[in-house]
């Protein structure tokens, strides 16, 4: 049971909202000590694994390109483009991205990701679609702020759903290869093609789950838009002076404490 000390440190540390990097290091040291390592050995093990796992930080190389495009109006253009299509709603855009992500993923392609697709393209398009026909005061209101947060969250969720629940359909995916190597070691030989086939039902169910969530989001957006149009009927209410702006029934909580550490 002592081996779980690191897990306890993580749970308690994150619950107390201590800095996650520090919590991880303390948890690592505790786990290492339990495993009978000396502090120097722990430091070396951490450093070694940190270097081995540099791949997860390579997204940083895309930041200058994304930033440069944003500086010149990429996100504004994504918003503007989507407003020309009346049929485009935040939910439909999110779902279309999910389908595209799933299809390409099933063929072993990693097209997408939060830094390269969601932030610069999908999120501004989705929020842009929700902004259609709203006055600038309405868009600047706390109610819309909260709505736009929920839209972006669903964008992020669709990336994760597309990624996780379709990658095993690809016969040569890392996940299937790992399953095969583990099971082969236990004398239960499996074929990659069989496994890929049985990954399909879960992929379809995940599509259905996201479909329901996107539909709910679109309904939610239409309701919020109606309320926003009532609160901010047209541009003459510029500045959001109407008192009802903050008194809506929106129960979505935003904790300011969490926004920056």
């Amino acid at each position, binding site marked *: 049971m002592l081996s779980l000390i*690191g*897990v306890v440190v*993580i749970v308690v540390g*994150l619950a107390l909202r201590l800095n*996650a*990097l*520090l919590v*991880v*290091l303390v*948890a690592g040291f505790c*786990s290492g000590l339990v*495993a009978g390592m000396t502090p120097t050995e722990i*430091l070396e*093990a951490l*450093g*070694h*694994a*940190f270097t081995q*796992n*540099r791949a*997860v930080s*390579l997204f*940083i190389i895309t*930041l200058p*390109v*994304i930033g*440069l*495009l944003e*500086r*010149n*109006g*990429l996100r*504004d*253009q994504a918003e503007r*483009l989507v407003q020309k299509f009346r049929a485009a709603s935040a939910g439909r855009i999110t779902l279309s991205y999910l389908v595209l992500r799933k299809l390409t993923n099933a063929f072993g392609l990693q097209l997408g990701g939060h830094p390269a697709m*969601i932030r*610069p*393209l999908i999120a501004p398009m989705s929020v842009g679609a929700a902004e259609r026909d709203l006055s600038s005061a309405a868009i600047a209101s706390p109610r819309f702020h909260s709505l736009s*947060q929920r839209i972006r*969250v669903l*964008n*992020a969720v669709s990336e*994760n759903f597309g990624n*996780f*629940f379709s990658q095993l359909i690809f016969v040569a995916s890392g996940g299937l290869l*790992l*399953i*095969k190597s*583990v099971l082969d*070691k*236990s004398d*239960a030989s*499996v*074929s990659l093609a069989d*496994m890929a086939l*049985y*990954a399909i*039902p879960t992929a379809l169910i995940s599509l259905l789950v996201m479909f329901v969530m996107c539909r709910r989001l679109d309904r939610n957006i239409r309701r919020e838009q109606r309320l926003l149009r009532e609160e901010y009927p047209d541009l003459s209410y510029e500045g959001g002076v109407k008192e009802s702006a903050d008194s809506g029934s929106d129960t979505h909580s935003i904790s300011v404490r*969490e926004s920056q*550490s």
Partner: protein
Amino acid sequence: MSGIDILYLITGLATMAFAVLTLTDRDHPRRLGTSAFWMIFGISLAFGGWLPDAVVGLAMLALALLAAAGQLGLGNYGQLSDTVRKARMQRFGSRLFIPALLIPAGTFIYTLTTGQSALVGLGVATLLAFAVALLMLRERPTTGLQEGRRLADSIGWAAILPQFLAALGLLFDQAGVGQTIAELVSSVVPDTSLVACVIAYCLGMAIFTMLMGNGFAAFAVITSGIGYPLVIALHGGNPAIVGVLGMLSGYCGTLMTPMAANFNIVPAALLELDDRYHIIRTQIVPALVMLTANISLMLLLAF
């Protein structure tokens, strides 16, 4: 030097450039701390393969202390005004999408034609997209780095959390966290019941993935501890079906844990969400639905 090592070197050098630009940013309220943070991280990224492991370990300690002491902040990135930016948007229009789409498309084509890893493809495609963006927008490379620094600062220390967590996974492994979980679960499961064994395996995958932040790390441990002996050997489950649905159950855990920072925490920062845990909170119910679906599918198909 292999392609991937060159990519680490370039990414590390870019990160070090963020540090240098931060140092020259007189308006930065946390100039020294933020600069030191990106410099240390950039060095570990670029030269990690050549540095002694203990030095990298010390660098991690320094990074964690800088972040915990609140030494990171936002500076002045020479942003354009809304009017100027919108005017530029009018001028470039949808051509702005070209470099953005060049990253995924280039990654795909490079990977397909050279057969090298997708990461190298990502690096090559990104550098190409950077060059195209600079030419098209007539911007200077330093402006690009300045913009990269803006995004890196806006993500903050969460940007390097995934790499920290991956390192922690190794120590969890050494301490035997997985074996303990597997023993714990199998000791409470009545192994005569097929349903109980399947639920224990899938739940065990999800829970252990939540602790490790990674389904792959959970799979070997939980499958050899619960999945193989109880579900496959004892009850005769089809190994291919049990294996793939077990892994997919692990992925349900990934959606519910801050330990999978690159999927749940970094995106929250990238998308400028007020609540760092908003994505996880939203994913809990759908992830539980998916876990129930995987358990049901396993019971339905594997026996």
